[in-house]
C-alpha cells in the first residue's frame, strides 16, 4: 500500500483528519525548506505538499507567486526540488511527500525521466496544476508503474462526470479547490464546501483534501471536518514573506499556526 493510502487509512481509523501544509521548495532557501519540513512533521502534519517553483504560476495568488520568484532567484528547479526531497527522506521514512507544480518543468525533463527521478527521490504523489486528466493519462500511467500517486484537482464547478474521471485516474487523494479563484483568495464558504463534498463523496472512495483559502485554526477545523483533510499554503508562506530578515521567526510562526490547527482539528 502506498504511503499516502496508509496515512489516510490510519487517520480514518483514529477518526482524525489530515493536516497538509504546502510550502514552495527553496523559499527562501533549500536549507530553510528542509528544516521546516522536519519541524512541520514534529508539529503533527500528515502529508507535505512541496511546491516546485515555476516562472508562470497561473493558478496561484500573489503570495505563492512571490514564493516562486524568491526560490527562482537562486535557481531553484525541479531537479533541485527532487534533491531536497531525497535529503528529507534520509531522516524521515514515514511522511508522504507530494510534489505540486506546473507541467513545463516536467515536460523539459521528459515524462519518463521525471517518473524515474521522482521514484529515486521516493516521492509519493504528484499534483500538476495544468495537467487535467484529458491530457494527463500518459504521465499518470508512468507514475503509477512506479507506485507514485497522481493527485487531481476538483473544483466547485466540476461535474459528476469529471469527478468520476478524476476518481478513476487519480489515486492517493483528491484535492478539492474550495473556491473559484487562485490560491490564497479569501472568500471560502463552508456551506458551499459541505454541499459539494456530499456530491464528491457519493462518487469517489478516495480521500478528499480541501484547500484554497484556509487561513486559521478555526477554518481548518470546520473545513477538515467536511472531508478527509485540509491543505494550507498561502497562510504559511505569508509568514515566510513577513519575516525574510528572520527565518527562525518565520519558522516558529509557521509551526505555531500548524500546531494550533492540529489542536483544533483533533478536539
Amino acid at each position, binding site marked *: 500500500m502506498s504511503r499516502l493510502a496508509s496515512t489516510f487509512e490510519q487517520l480514518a481509523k483514529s477518526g482524525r483528519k489530515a493536516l497538509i501544509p504546502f510550502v514552495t521548495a527553496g523559499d527562501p532557501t533549500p536549507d530553510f525548506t528542509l528544516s521546516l519540513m522536519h519541524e512541520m512533521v514534529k508539529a503533527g502534519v500528515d502529508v507535505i505538499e512541496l511546491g516546485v517553483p515555476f516562472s*508562470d504560476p497561473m*493558478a496561484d495568488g500573489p503570495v505563492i507567486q512571490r514564493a516562486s520568484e524568491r526560490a527562482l532567484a537562486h535557481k531553484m528547479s525541479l531537479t533541485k526540488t527532487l534533491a531536497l526531497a531525497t535529503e528529507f527522506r534520509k531522516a524521515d521514512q514515514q511522511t508522504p511527500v507530494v510534489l505540486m507544480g506546473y507541467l513545463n*518543468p516536467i*515536460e523539459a525533463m521528459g515524462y519518463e525521466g521525471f517518473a524515474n527521478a521522482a521514484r529515486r527521490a521516493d516521492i509519493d504523489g504528484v499534483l500538476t496544476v*495544468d495537467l487535467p486528466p*484529458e491530457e494527463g493519462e500518459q504521465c499518470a500511467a508512468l507514475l503509477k508503474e512506479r507506485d507514485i500517486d497522481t493527485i487531481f484537482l476538483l*473544483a466547485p464547478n466540476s461535474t459528476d462526470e469529471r469527478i468520476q474521471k478524476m476518481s478513476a485516474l487519480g489515486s492517493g487523494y483528491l484535492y478539492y479547490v474550495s473556491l*473559484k479563484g*487562485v490560491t490564497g483568495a479569501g472568500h471560502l464558504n463552508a456551506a458551499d464546501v459541505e454541499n459539494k463534498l456530499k456530491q464528491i463523496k457519493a462518487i469517489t472512495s478516495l480521500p478528499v483534501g480541501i484547500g484554497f483559502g484556509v487561513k486559521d485554526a478555526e477554518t481548518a477545523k470546520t473545513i477538515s471536518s467536511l472531508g478527509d483533510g485540509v491543505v494550507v499554503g498561502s497562510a504559511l508562506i505569508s509568514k515566510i514573506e513577513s519575516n525574510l530578515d528572520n527565518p527562525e521567526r518565520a519558522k516558529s510562526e509557521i509551526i505555531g499556526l500548524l500546531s494550533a490547527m492540529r489542536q483544533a482539528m483533533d478536539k
Partner: protein
Amino acid sequence: MTEKYTMPDARGHFGPYGGMFVAETLIPPIQELNAAYQRYLQDPDFISELDADLQHYVGRPSPLYYAERWSRELGGAQIYLKREDLNHTGSHKINNTVGQALLAKRMGKTRIIAETGAGQHGVATATVAARLGLECVVYMGAVDVARQSLNVYRMKLLGATVVAVESGSKTLKDALNEALRDWVTNVDNTFYIIGTVAGPHPYPAMVRDFQAIIGRETKQQCQDMIGKLPDALVACVGGGSNAIGLFYPFIEDESVKLIGVEAAGDGVASGRHSAPLCAGRPGVLHGNRTYLMADDDGEIIETHSISAGLDYPGVGPEHAWLKDTGRAEYVNITDNEALEGFYALTRMEGIIPALESAHAMAYTMKLAPTMRKDETIVINLSGRGDKDMQTMAKREGIEL
C-alpha cells in the same frame, strides 16, 4: 494539389501541439465556450451578424494594395500589402474581438477580460465592449503600459479598466497569467477574449477562424488583380494570429510559400529575442503545447523585442505544427532590421507600419530581390504605426 487539411482534432491537438492544459476550474467554462463556438459557427444568424459587423463596423474587405514603387526599388517580386492597418482601431485584432464579443453576448456573459501586449488587442477589445455595453478589464504588463501609453489612454477613453501587471517580466506573458487568474475567479459572468492563436483549445482554432477572413479576401483579391495565386505570403509572428489568418486559407495550396517572421530582438545568437520557433523548444504554457522560450529546467525565459506585440515566449500551436511538417517556414528579423523595414515602407509608399508588421517588411526586403519579377509576395500589413510614434521619436532623441 494536396490532401485536405483538417487540424485541429476534436480535442484541439495539432499533432503533438495544442490541447487543453489548464487547471480544473477552467475546464467547465472552456467546454461551455467550445460548445457555443461549435454551435454558432453553423448558425446562419450568427454568421450574418458577424459578416455585417465586419463590413460596416470594421470596414472590410480591407484593400490589397500593390506597392509598385517599393517593388521596383527592390527589383524582384511584385509586392502587395494586405491592408489590415486600415481596419477600425488600426489592426487585424478587431476581426477576432468582433467575433468573440458576439459569442459572449449570445452566451449571456456580462463582463469581458483580455490581455494585451502592444495594446492593439486591448483597444480592439475595449472597442467592442463599449459598443455592446459590456464591462471590460484589460491586463497589460507594466513595461508595456509604459511603452504603449497612447493605447492605454485609448482603452481608458473607451471605458475599459486597464490593470498594469507587475509580476514576472511585466510583459505580455504576465498579462496572460493575470487574465487567467481573473477568469478562474469570475468564471460565471466573464468571457475571456484571447487575442492570439494561443491558449487552451478552442482558442487557437477559434481565433484562427475569425482571422481567416484575411486570407479568404486575399485569395479573391489576388484572383481579381493578378489572376493567380501569390507565390509567397509573409507575416510577422508573435502569438501568430495575423499570420494564421493570412496563411490558413492557403494551406492546401502548396505552390504558395508561407513565411512567418519572428522577432530576433538583439539577434537570435544573443539570447535576447522572441523567436521560439527559430530558437526555442516544445513545452507547455498558457494552456497549450507549443514551441517556447524556456531554459533547461523548463522555466520560461524573458523575451526581448522592440515591438511589444511580438514580445511573447510562446507561439500558437498551429504554427508549431506547420513548422514541424515543413508547410510553413519561420525566419527572424532583428530590432535594427525591423527599423529598416519601418522606414522603407514609410518613405517608399507613404504607409507607416506598426513595428510588429515592420518585421514582415524587413524580411520581404531580403526575399523580394531573390525572386523573379513575375512572382508575387503578399505581406500582411497587420497594423498601423501610430501607436509606435513615441517609441520611434524617443529612439531618434525627439521629445513629443
